[in-house]
């Protein structure tokens, strides 16, 4: 589904990713862990299509398409979803209007007619329950004045509405209390099928108590230095990243 080969990425002439390889198959959940500043968010941004990075070598193939040939919106329409670490506040754009536009633009990309308003509203009601968000939240402007937990729940709500093939959740667990974490994780678990995949970027093992990954990768100084099963996360929690550095 996703195949990353020898990816090297710089920003302002500083190399952040130094030859990264990653394979993700349908139905899998991957966790990428590692200390701050090792390139975890850079990886997420480059897959999603942020422009401020220079890709100096390598390729990212998603469902047979080279992502570097696609704009951010085309990648989204192909099924790539980025759950933002810091969701942006957009005053004046209601969540309903935002999502209706997004859903219909994605449908247009696939050659489908816009979703009738009643169907769209029914879909929203259904997905709201999934992430336990208050019904009046969708009338508010996107993320404006939301608490940290509301912002992250809103990311998962959008993911539910857009039904992506590959969800990359960039530190979705940071800044969440235990209840919000449980809701967010439940949402991700319910949305997971044998046909889609998720990449969880996280610092802490805590999230992985709720979402059990198939693979855990450790990203360190721009490379994946170790890959294992879910038990690797526990080992990291216990021994810290220093253990890898020395080992």
């Amino acid at each position, binding site marked *: 589904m996703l195949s990353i080969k020898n990816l090297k990425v710089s920003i302002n002439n500083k190399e952040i990713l130094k030859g990264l390889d990653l394979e993700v198959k349908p139905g899998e959940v991957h966790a990428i862990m590692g200390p701050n500043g090792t390139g975890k968010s850079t990886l997420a941004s480059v897959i999603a299509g942020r422009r401020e990075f220079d890709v100096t070598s390598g390729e990212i193939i998603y469902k047979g398409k080279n992502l570097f040939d696609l704009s951010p919106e085309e990648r*989204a329409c192909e099924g790539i979803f980025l759950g933002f670490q810091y969701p942006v506040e957009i005053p*004046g754009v209601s969540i309903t209007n935002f999502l209706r536009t997004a859903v219909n633009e994605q449908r247009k990309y696939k050659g489908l007619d816009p979703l009738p308003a009643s169907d769209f509203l029914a879909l929203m009601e259904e997905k709201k329950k999934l992430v336990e968000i208050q019904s009046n939240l969708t009338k508010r402007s996107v993320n404006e004045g939301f608490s940290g937990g509301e912002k992250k729940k809103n990311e998962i709500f959008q993911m539910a509405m857009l039904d992506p093939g590959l969800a990359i959740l960039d530190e979705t667990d940071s800044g969440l209390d235990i209840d919000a974490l449980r809701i967010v994780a439940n949402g991700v678990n319910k949305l997971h099928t044998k046909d889609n995949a998720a990449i969880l970027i996280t610092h802490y093992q805590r999230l992985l108590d709720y979402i059990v990954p198939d693979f855990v990768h450790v990203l360190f100084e721009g490379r994946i230095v170790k890959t294992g099963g879910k038990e690797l996360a526990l080992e990291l929690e216990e021994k810290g990243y220093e253990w890898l550095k020395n080992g």
Partner: protein
Amino acid sequence: MTENTFKDKLISLFDDNFRANFKHDTPHVHQLRRQAMEAFAKTGFPHTRLEEWRSTNLAKPLALEYVQHFQPLDEKIDIEKVFQCEVYDLDTYVFSQLNGWYIYKTLPITTLPNGTIVGSLDKAMETYPEIFEKHYAQYADFRNNGLNALNTAFAQDGMFIYVPDGVEVSKPIQIINIINLKENIFIQPRNLIILGKNSKLQLVNCDHSLLHKASLINSVSEVVIGENAELDYYKMQNKDNESTMVASLYFHQEANSRLTSNTITLNGGIVRNNTSVKLNGQGCETNLYGLYLVDKEQHIDNHLAVEHAAPNGTSNQLFKGILDDQAQSVFHGHVLVQRDAQKTNADQNNKNILLTDKANAQSEPHLEIYADDVKCSHGATIGQLDPEAMFYLQQRGISQDSARMLLMNAFAEEVINKISIDPLRERIDELVSKRLKGELTICDQCILDCSGRKPVKFDIDLSKLS
């Protein structure tokens, strides 16, 4: 023609007409004309050497030739056939002016069932001389202001509205001002609006031009808001690119009165809005909002002057603009807090989005404070659409064009949401969207034959945004 020859021409035109025309003047108004003309002879037209006019140059429109009428053209015109208001489901009392003259089917002055008087200023002068004695030219200073002087000297017609004490006018009053003449025209409308104590009025003022000849408008409005009265004032400006409009509004607020003014400029050649408010009694509330969408060579200048003359007053200014092409905008907000105006709360804010490198926005908030116990703030931003928000929207599959449209609409929304008349707000919202998409033309409302004219469009050059 230079400004000076125009000025000389106006002076002799005044002398020629002083006796023959201005027939409905009260002695008071008649005398004011003469004084005003003397003042104009001294001050003349504003020019860019004046601080207040540094950024808006009238030299070009003043160099053109215009006709001026001292009588309404005797055209039997059915306004509904010429002009259809875009805000169609708005239930209002509608009154119209054509080329600066109040037009009516039966009576020049109408008294609504609740006692509110609406009609032609020309006729009201004769009928209600005591009101004119008390209020006319009391708020719009002409001694040091050339354009006010010129208007006071020449003005013959305009709207007169009088809301008696305690009357809450149930439906909005809508005034449609249309310019429609096959020659270049110079008009100077004059409006006088009085709200009695504890009264309430919503006023919707629409400025349109239908033919594409040059027009020069110098309008002066004086609005008195009595004690504990409330006025919502909406000004919709959709003029063609050949028009020059200086619209000067003077609000005089008595104690505990509330004013909300919202100026939406969808199109216009040169537009200068002078909005002055005096919070004369204590506990007044003033909200001045504005939105301008300009492109091509258009120039919009909002000059605001708010004077807090009494304690416990609150004033807010929020003006937002989107500029494309070589368009220029000026925001000049001045708040003066007098020594006695303790506990004043004043805020000024101007935000602009520039869509091109050549568009230019000037923002000049000023505070002048003589009281010591006040809370005043001001802010101004000039920038592009937020790239983080753009990426966020695109990451959800929204195309760059749609994302820009969403953000521009959202930017405008903050001002549009202040409109308290629901159908008006919804319609303005649609008009603004149409304008931003380049679909609104000033010909939209017009069924006259304008063949051969290209519609005015708001072409946003999307390639210029990263």
